[in-house]
């Protein structure tokens, strides 16, 4: 495998992590995930309806994809930790995407609670991938307590606004001792490519695929964008300059 993504000692050939929410139906979800090339997909942990249990979507995914459970919606460290423990039991995985929200409207992380919960979960043997602010200090704190990666937001979850602060993402990527996964706010393929060009190791995409007009095609677009952006990053781009520099030779011009 050339240029694999490595998180907590596990190797992936795809640098696209896909979400499973908000698809118009199950079949579209399955087809889009296949088109995306994702190997790691996220799921939430929720109470069952108590009128009997009729089986879940995850039954379809369980053997083809590695599932990364999230603690979406949790606002306290205690709830997030319990959710992670329930997820470990339900899915037989010690990986968790840790989400701790400080504002229900913005879905911005609560950094204080997040670092505390990450610390405790790492001590309990979890592989923690935290959804976090696009701020180098928070990312460093999370790495310091032992997170396996950091997942800074590009912009608000589900907003499709792309990468609001590319300079911050670039700084985080340059300094992070752990892999950086751009998570939240990607809107279209160019955003995913940009994330990779800024130095991200992977991207996490849900809404941009699931809610596009043609999720299967958008999933394929995202796959290509992540691969293209990564190749561009490895190829080493030209610097930006404020003046023109002609590309054709200057000598031998007709009429000169």
């Amino acid at each position: 495998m050339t240029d694999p993504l490595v998180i907590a000692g596990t190797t992936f050939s795809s640098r696209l992590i896909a979400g499973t929410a908000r698809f118009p139906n199950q079949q579209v979800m399955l087809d889009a995930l296949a088109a995306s090339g994702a190997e790691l997909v996220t799921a939430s942990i929720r109470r069952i309806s108590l009128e009997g249990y009729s089986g879940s979507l995850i039954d379809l995914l369980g053997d083809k994809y590695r599932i990364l459970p999230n603690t979406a919606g949790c606002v306290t460290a205690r709830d997030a930790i319990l959710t992670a423990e329930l997820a470990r039991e339900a899915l037989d995985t010690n990986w968790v995407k840790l989400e701790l929200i400080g504002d229900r409207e913005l879905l911005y992380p609560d950094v204080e609670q997040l670092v505390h919960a990450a610390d405790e979960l790492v001590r309990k043997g979890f592989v923690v991938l935290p959804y976090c602010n696009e701020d180098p200090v928070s990312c460093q704190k999370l790495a310091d307590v032992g997170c396996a990666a950091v997942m800074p937001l590009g912009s608000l979850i589900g907003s499709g606004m792309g990468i609001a602060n590319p300079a911050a993402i670039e700084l985080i990527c340059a300094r992070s001792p752990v892999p950086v996964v751009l998570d939240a706010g990607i809107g279209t393929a160019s955003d995913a490519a940009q994330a990779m060009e800024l130095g991200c190791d992977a991207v996490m995409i849900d809404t941009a695929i699931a809610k596009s007009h043609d999720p299967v095609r958008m999933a394929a677009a995202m796959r290509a964008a992540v691969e293209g952006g990564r190749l561009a990053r490895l190829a080493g781009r030209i610097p930006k300059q404020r003046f023109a520099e002609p590309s054709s030779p200057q000598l031998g011009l007709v009429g000169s």
Partner: protein
Amino acid sequence: MMRLRVNGEETELAAATIAELLAERGIDPKTRFLAVAVNGSVVRRAEWPMASLAAGDNVEIVRPLQGG
């Protein structure tokens, strides 16, 4: 009959163990990807038939669902 909280709802149950609670709710205990916690602690599947419930207990029964 005993009063406890299951998935956020106060409820009266005849069940004395987690296995009995699941049966009472029509949930096959062999269902994959289920997890249960009582009073904030996960109870492993192997213990469901033995884990006894008490009045006032807070039970969470969860499974994975779509999520981002």
